[in-house]
């Protein structure tokens, strides 16, 4: 397969063409708003495509260290199997959060919280800026 331009580059390139060339041809306001939303989602996809398999593995490693539990591994690096495994990792973290609060152990709650903050930081890195186009 040709690996370059990367998926990240291709998606960002499509977004740029929509923004700079197609947008000027759009006449109706609802379609302009849709195009702005598509632009934002394409940029999210671009950032995700570059890192998502690595991101979920890094998160699973963090959770394994924080909880002392083995998170296992996906059956392969094909995205469907990675996503199925990541769901199991997320369930483990959700269960740990609930167990931490039930225990009342503040250090255990704080430990779970560290994992959640890291997860949120990655999500925000992927999101970039939020612009609620079409509202107001």
């Amino acid at each position: 397969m040709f690996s370059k331009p990367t998926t990240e580059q291709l998606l960002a390139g499509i977004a740029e063409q929509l923004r700079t060339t197609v947008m000027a041809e759009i006449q109706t306001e609802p379609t302009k708003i849709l195009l702005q939303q598509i632009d934002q989602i394409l940029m999210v996809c671009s950032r995700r495509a570059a890192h998502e398999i690595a991101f979920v593995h890094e998160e699973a490693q963090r959770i394994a260290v924080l909880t002392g539990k083995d998170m296992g591994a996906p059956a392969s690096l094909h995205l469907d199997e990675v996503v199925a495994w990541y769901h199991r990792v997320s369930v483990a973290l959700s269960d740990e959060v609930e167990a931490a609060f039930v225990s009342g152990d503040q250090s255990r709650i704080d430990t779970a919280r560290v994992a959640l903050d890291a997860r949120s930081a990655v999500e925000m890195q992927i999101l970039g800026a939020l612009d609620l186009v079409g509202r107001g």
Partner: protein
Amino acid sequence: MHNVNEMPARIAAFFAKVEPGWKNVKVDSYEVMTGGYSRLLARAEVTHAGGHETLVLRGDPPKDRQLIETSRQQEYELLCVVADHGVRTPRALYFDATGADLGTATIVLEYSKCTSFVPWFNAGGSLDGLHLRLAEAIAFYQSVPIDKLPASMERHASWDAYMTKRIDAWRQASHNHVESLPIFHYVAEWLDAHRPPEAPLVLRHGDFQSSNVMISADGQFEMIDWELAGIGDPREDMGYFKAVAQAMPPDLLDDTRIEEFCARYRELTGMNELQVNPATVAYFLILGVVGTVEQLMQGGAKWATGENHLFTSVFNMSSVVFGQSMWLAAASQLSEPMKRIAAAAQGGK
């Protein structure tokens, strides 16, 4: 409303039926409006022998293009109740409950002469005193007696029962999603561990944000888009307003205004400082959004499984990503203040 080309004829036929006294009805224009994320919106100019009407049509999109599922029947009944109570909101004038006439379940509203708040602000509108007007607007619609609200709205056995259900909605939103959402579980547990003092249950708007308020020439707020309304905690709409303002300024409840806002609201409602203060409002910045978050996540899940083809469902998941970072930060800041408030409330009993 699904077929724009049919609408002038449909509207003319509709008024021949509901306003038999109108003669020579002519639909001068029919324009799709932007701004409604969840429902179809259009503006119609209608002339008849007795005068001219500017109307707004608000209807359900096709099933596979619905961002969220809500009842037009309930919304119509509520609009009638709140308008009769004197709440500033565009009046619902007609209702096609089945869509037999207008193509989909549709509420026909009067066209508001007010200006949308966000564009008004972006054009240089002054915020002076508006946080007080906001407190007054909220206190007023919350004064609608619960027994006057549509029978279809869920009544709750107690405030505690209501809060338990709302908090659990965070867990359920994760369980019902296409993947587990650990931050939702944290939010639920944190909210449960830091409950505020009890408050009387009232009408809540449910989507009370700057893009759902308009401003009149005399500087008063008018509320629109009541589709997510229900009966709930009075601080939910305040927190929700603040939550959305984090992503879409201006924030009328920022640090410079929140104390005065709370004081004005307490003055109007008789609630006390332990019930309504910057910390309890911020608590509901988290809890108050759960209804919308549930709906947005359901929309995203249905898109992922192919049951929904509305691109906005995907786009709106970005708001939840942003929200998660905000809820975590708010929980960190509020843990100690909420513990102090709970202790003071216990001491006062």
